């Protein structure tokens, strides 16, 4: 972080925190995030209600500025909305703009623990009792799904018409139509999704990337749900399907809920808060959908490498997860022999 940025940021933080002064003691760029940049800030606040040490995360547009997802201001509004609904998220603090940091950004309180999926898979004590953690995730999702349109602050979210499922089918087909290589197995999956699409009369705010790796845990349990950049009005079961989809179990396929717990625990937690019991059959549709959607996203990521726009081994390899996703789609839709 450049000295001028740091000084401007200190002034901004002091003003927003109603403090006499703020000193940034440490600013560390966190790994990951090709579209956004996350800075871990440790600051000393002098005066005002937040006097003392302030640990927070600054989330800014990346310098490259490619942004297909929400703007920082929109993401901040989402975070505020879900925070007030009682979802466990990093507390949103302040929204800033280019005049301070050169790019749009917001500041949120730092959450404890780790989000790393590979650590959750390897360290069975992380996150506390796993069935309890899984239930808790169900509860969090149910709390999120209490948010329904219209909400003034979220007026920027488009209506999912004709239905959340069919909107996805249309988008994925539009992508494939513009892509250089045909994917018949994905087309097969899309046809199945079209034929079996639920009508979804009640839209809720869905996270749309709620999976292991996108929530933080400490030794005791869940500390924060992260990455709200894909949130949108959708079918409530989309989040449950995404979480349970086999492709997001990180190799722990018998732990049907995110590779960390049982599906029953997830559904139990969800039902306790929402009063509605999800059925395996209804969620199954969204598990197929999850595989198709992840395959399309993987193709898009691979294409960033293939097109020469952003050479990257990680992006290149992401394209190679598509065949196994397609195989799973075929299995789930009755094509497989195994």
């Amino acid at each position, binding site marked *: 972080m450049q000295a001028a940025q740091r000084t401007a940021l200190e002034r901004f933080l002091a003003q927003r925190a109603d403090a006499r002064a703020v000193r940034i003691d440490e600013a560390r760029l966190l790994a990951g995030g090709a579209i956004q940049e996350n800075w871990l800030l440790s600051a000393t606040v002098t005066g005002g209600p937040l006097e003392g040490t302030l640990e927070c995360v600054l989330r800014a547009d990346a310098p490259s500025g490619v942004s297909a997802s929400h703007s920082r201001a929109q993401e901040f509004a989402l975070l505020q909305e879900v925070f007030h609904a009682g979802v466990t998220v990093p507390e949103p603090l302040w929204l800033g703009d280019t005049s301070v940091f050169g790019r749009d950004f917001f500041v949120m309180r730092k959450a404890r623990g780790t989000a790393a999926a590979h650590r959750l898979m390897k360290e069975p004590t992380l996150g506390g009792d796993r069935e309890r953690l899984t239930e808790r995730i169900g509860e969090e999702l149910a709390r999120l799904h209490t948010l329904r349109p219209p909400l003034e602050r979220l007026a920027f979210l488009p209506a999912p018409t004709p239905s959340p499922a069919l909107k996805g089918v249309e988008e994925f*087909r539009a992508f*494939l139509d513009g892509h250089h*290589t*045909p*994917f*018949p*197995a994905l*087309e*097969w999956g*899309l*046809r199945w999704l079209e*034929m079996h699409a639920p009508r979804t009369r009640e839209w809720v705010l869905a996270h749309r990337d709620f999976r292991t790796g996108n929530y933080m845990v400490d030794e005791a349990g869940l500390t924060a749900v992260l990455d709200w950049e894909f949130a949108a009005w959708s079918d409530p079961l989309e989040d449950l399907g995404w979480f349970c989809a086999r492709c997001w179990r990180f*190799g722990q*396929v018998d732990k049907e809920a995110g590779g960390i717990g049982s599906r029953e625990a997830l559904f139990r937690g969800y039902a306790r808060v929402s009063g509605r019991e999800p059925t395996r059959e209804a969620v199954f549709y969204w598990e197929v959908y999850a595989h198709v959607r992840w395959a399309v996203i993987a193709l898009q990521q691979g294409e960033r490498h293939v097109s020469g726009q952003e050479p990257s*081994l*990680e992006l*290149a*390899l992401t394209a*190679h*997860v*598509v*065949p*196994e996703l*397609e*195989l*799973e789609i*075929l299995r789930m839709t009755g*094509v*497989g*022999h*195994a």
Partner: protein
Amino acid sequence: MRERPDGAELLAIAREVLRNELLPLLPRDKAYGALMIANAMGIAERQLRSGMGAQEEERRALAMLLERDGDLATLNRVFAVRIRQGAFDDNAHARELLWNATVQRVRESAPKALPGASSR
């Protein structure tokens, strides 16, 4: 005539050196990069080993199903369009073809995901 060891064989032995000799010495934050390299080499090696035979087989099966000739990309494009139209909703041959072509690609890109492979 090309030299032995050929490309696939070279990739195999190079990958072994990377995994067994270099990986243990790398600092923790570089291990992921090395594993990605090993993975990429594995995919390239398996593609070289399977050659063009399976691709040609897929092309022929597609030509028969679609009752027209063409290169693999063109035929797959037609196949995709007709699947979308619902022309193959109840067609056992189309299903078999989809399954076989996909299994072949998984064999190259992610063999551990194949039915019967030990899932880890």
